[in-house]
């Protein structure tokens, strides 16, 4: 049977990650595309790290970092009154970090491909920075931004290792669709695993086709 609770949890998580990464991704990508500063390569490498790091490694460190023994986990618990581990908030925060490069990389490439003198031409035409962003940068970088959003969404929907490490497997709180599939296979419920896997497969195919289509159109 389809686990709707896990399905909607995954959807909620992926949507939130996508929206938050849209704004933070835009800020980070624009900053990296046009600013030169010392250690820029290091920052870029750090941002891209989740692309190559085993999810269990990232999950393990996040687990320690979120735990009440770390200053961050402790501070969070002091302020909010609950822990980050095995909660939806912790899952969200972990997913944001894990999916960040998937959102930022396409956006960064898109902003980098806008020639500097187009922005200067906009300024000389009387457009302030905000108008330049809305009227020039955004329309030109749009395919890249959309790619970043779609990738962040799809990637969050399918993540497993980080979720399991940080969120565990609590139905209704942290059990996402991919965890639910794993759970069903463990209990020899192949029928349910089939249905849920098919949903994710179709979804992944549709999103990745969309990304390719967008890139084709912008090229």
């Amino acid at each position, binding site marked *: 049977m389809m686990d709707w609770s896990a399905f909607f949890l995954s959807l909620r998580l992926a949507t939130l990650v996508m929206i938050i990464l849209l704004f933070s991704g835009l800020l980070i990508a624009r900053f990296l595309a046009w600013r030169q500063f010392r250690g820029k390569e290091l920052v870029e490498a750090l941002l891209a790290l989740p692309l190559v790091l085993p999810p269990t490694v990232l999950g393990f460190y996040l687990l320690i970092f979120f735990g009440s023994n770390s200053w961050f986990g402790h501070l969070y618990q002091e302020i909010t009154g609950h822990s980050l581990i095995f909660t939806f908030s912790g899952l969200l925060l972990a997913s944001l970090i894990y999916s960040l490069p998937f959102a930022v990389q396409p956006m960064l490439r898109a902003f980098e491909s806008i020639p500097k*003198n*187009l922005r*200067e*031409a906009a*300024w*000389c035409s*009387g*457009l302030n920075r905000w108008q330049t962003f809305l*009227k020039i940068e955004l329309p030109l970088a749009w395919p890249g931004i959309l790619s970043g959003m779609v990738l962040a969404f799809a990637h969050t929907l399918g993540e497993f290792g980080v979720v399991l490490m940080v969120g565990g497997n609590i139905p209704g709180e942290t059990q996402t669709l991919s965890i639910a599939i794993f759970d069903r296979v463990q209990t020899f419920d192949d029928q349910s695993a089939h249905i849920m896997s098919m949903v994710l497969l179709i979804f992944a195919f549709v999103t990745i086709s969309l990304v390719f289509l967008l890139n084709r159109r912008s090229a």
Partner: protein
Amino acid sequence: MKGLSLQLKNMSGIPLDLEFTCAPGKVLALVGPSGSGKTTVLRCIAGLFRTDEGFIYCDDWTWFDTDQKVFVSPQQRHAGLVFQNYALFPHLNVRQNIEIAFTAQSKTSVTELLSLVNLRGLEERLPSTLSGGQQQRVALARALAREPRVLLLDEPFSAVDQVTRRKLRLELLELIRKLEIPIILVTHDLDEAAMLADQICVIHNGTGLQIGTPEDVLRTPSSALVARLMDVRNLFEGVVIEQNEQNDHSLIAWGGIEFEAPFQRPFPRGAKLNWSIPADRVLLHRRVNPSRGVRENPVSGQIVELVTISGITNVIVSLDSSPETRLHMDLPSHVAERNSLAVGERISMSLLKNAIHLMDHSHSSSR
């Protein structure tokens, strides 16, 4: 004070050290080799680059002044800048590209601007579907849409072919007469500068070397470096033998002969100097019935090359007094034909005294 006046000094990064003024309706061309800082000067005027020191005044408006700590943003300056590659917004059509630069007070329309730059009927096209010349016109229209206080043109013809370039230059010349604002033109094309500009500012490594009319800069370059940058063909080294201010007389030794030049300014006797003479001020002696002028600084030699371009024949002569020296002489081509000039022929010429220009000596200037 009307027009644009500026003084820029930059020590760090891109070196700059120059000053000039440009009156409304006049064209000042910044001329120099690539990398000399010409474009940076335009960027300073547009507000896209700040120097360590200096000022930029446009009419009575201070755009930039390091003493007063004033910096007006590019948005507020109303400087119309035409970028070298035009920098049109690729996602906007021609009309939108121009409209984006309109202010609330703009009195002109897209149609008016497009007819001003001779481009109509392409309002709905995207820049990528336009030719280089059409893109240049759109960029010009966009720059004019803000009713700019100064027009800045960065190598405006570098991205178009030769035929289009000639046409666009003539159009620009016509447009310039209608505009009552200072126009600063960056170019490395000396003919372009001479054709369009009222004044030329020669730049080298960010330093303004000489400002003057194209005629002045070409005929009386302030140094051998300026002469070289302006591609003065007859640039030579000589030695001062004697000078006399009353008689406006200088006697110069050069490659085994002596010739007379104007006094101009005192040089130490025996000093090395550079001198130049415009190629059209070298006078050919007629073979039959030589005229009286033949006694003025006569030189003779053998023609090694003859090149005719649009009615002017450039004759290159190897001199008898020093065969490795090449003297350039420009003649109307009918004169070259009537005197049946040909490679290998021997001819004699006069160096017109008043056309000779003396400069301080600089190394590696002999040709």
